[in-house]
């Protein structure tokens, strides 16, 4: 276990990704200190100003400070990313464990999962939000649902592999019952792949949230999420490209950080699958 931590510490991808992510997390946490003003304050005089010393990232069409909005936007992105990752991993893990062990459940569950996977995630999310109304909760649920089948498949794969291991059969032979078999012998094997999967879910959730907001079907427009800021900048793109550029860069860097972290963790947590993907 200690050697795992050592390996993780030595991995450059983890260091860079973790660093990027820490920076974004710090921005989200300390937003009020990083930007003293109000990110939603209108200033009609200062509309569409280019980046300058006064406003580092410029202003939007209502004269709102883009630096402030971008800093505050990190809160939404990280919140959505982490929540979706946690929700889909929790739900997927429970379903996957049962599916991997109970045959008839498996048959039913996997058909349903195949069906959900066949529906393009973005469309499912758009439709749900369009109908249920836009709110942070709806967005999280709508993004998490398409991610669940992937987690289920991963967990089920691990379970099906592990249940054939002689040490699991030995545990059955010494009278260990199913709940304990799952907790003691199966579950620990899902931790490493799930952590890695969670990072990828987190990255794709952040992108999806931005896309939804960008298309006008995301979090309510008054919330300064990166997607919303960029959506507002679409019309002014030719004269004020910075409205899209800065939140876009922030989003890309955050997602990059999460992806690097995931790649690095995968390499150091499981040397056997280092080569995969």
């Amino acid at each position, binding site marked *: 276990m200690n050697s795992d931590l050592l390996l993780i510490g030595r991995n450059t991808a983890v260091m860079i990704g973790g660093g990027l992510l820490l920076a974004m997390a710090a921005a989200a946490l300390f937003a009020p200190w990083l930007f003293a003003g109000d990110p939603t304050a209108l200033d009609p005089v200062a509309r569409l100003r280019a980046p300058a010393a006064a406003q580092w990232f410029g202003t939007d069409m209502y004269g709102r400070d883009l630096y402030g909005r971008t800093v505050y936007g990190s809160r939404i992105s990280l919140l959505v990313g982490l929540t979706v990752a946690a929700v889909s991993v929790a739900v997927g893990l429970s379903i996957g464990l049962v599916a991997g062990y109970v045959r008839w459940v498996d048959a039913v569950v996997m058909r*349903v999962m195949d069906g959900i996977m066949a*529906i*393009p995630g973005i469309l499912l999310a758009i439709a749900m939000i369009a*109908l249920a109304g836009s709110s942070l909760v709806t967005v999280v649920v709508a993004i998490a649902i398409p991610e669940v089948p992937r987690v289920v498949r991963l967990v089920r794969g691990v379970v099906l592999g592990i249940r054939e291991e002689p040490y699991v059969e030995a545990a059955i032979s010494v009278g260990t019952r199913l709940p304990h078999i799952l907790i003691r012998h199966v579950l620990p094997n899902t931790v490493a792949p799930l952590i890695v999967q969670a990072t990828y879910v987190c990255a794709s959730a952040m992108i999806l949230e931005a*896309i939804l907001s960008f*298309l006008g079907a995301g979090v309510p427009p008054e919330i300064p999420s990166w997607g919303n800021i960029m959506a507002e900048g679409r019309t002014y*793109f030719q004269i004020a490209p910075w409205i*899209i550029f800065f939140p*876009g860069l922030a989003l890309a860097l955050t997602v*990059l950080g999460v992806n690097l972290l995931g790649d690095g963790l995968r390499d150091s947590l499981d040397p056997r699958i280092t080569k995969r993907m």
Partner: protein
Amino acid sequence: MIGFAARRLLATVPVMAVVAVFVFLLLHLGPGDPATVIAGDYAKPEDIARIRAQLGLDRPLYVQFGSWLWRLAQGDLGVSIFSNLPVAQLIGQRLEPTLALSALTLTFAVLVAVPLGTVAAWTAGSWIDRGVMAFAVVGFSVPVFVLGYALIYGLALKLALFPVQGYVGLAEGLWPFLHRLILPSLTLSVVYIALIARITRASVLDVLGEDYIRTAHAKGLTERAVLVRHALRNAAVPIVTVIGIGFALLIGGVVVTESVFNIPGLGRLTVDAVLRRDYPVIQGIILVFSAAYVLVNLVIDILYTVFDPRIRY
């Protein structure tokens, strides 16, 4: 072979059934009265009543589902609430740009990604490999619309190499058609290239560690023969698989890219329908896209048997 294809086709029925149930239930699982939701915030009572009647929302749920399914089986996707045109017709009108964009993107991505991934695997650990992998992780991290605007800004606005936005049908001539499609395809293909290149690298690398590669070396084959004849052929199945799985990614990307580049395809239709809460259209589009996804993966399953004689039917 034909028997296998038929059985595989039958196996898509339960999947599509789940999709249908899901799509149908979407409207009913949300909070509140569906007719009110669709009608929007400022609807008059008679509008709501009209919508309710039009969608048959006043009947019991299973009756609604049954008749919806029955009409679906006949190819009737319903009528748009906004334009009163049949959904099938609306989708048909928007098919060409979307197909063109997807096909061009897919071709471009595969042609670039497979050689890229193979070279990366072959030179694993070198700076070429690191470069490809770095490109892959970055390509995976930049949201497609951010990339789209960046490319528009650089290549269309500043360098004026391509038109900024818009679409011209194939009927207007090949060059104008392609000229406007290059930038969107380039945008959309980046994430796909990243995905396929990674998988290609991983599977080729896996295969290179196999015993039969050692056998091939022991025969005295050249490195190139080992790579092409033995490694790439065996790595084909996972690569083809990810092209299928990534198709979902492509569909999502199409919706966004069409919005960014103002292409009047299915993606734009989707966004417009969502903004107008034109529920029958949303349902129809989801069904069509899901069917396309299932179909693509069906074709890929059948392709497996070509690449790998061990997969039996």
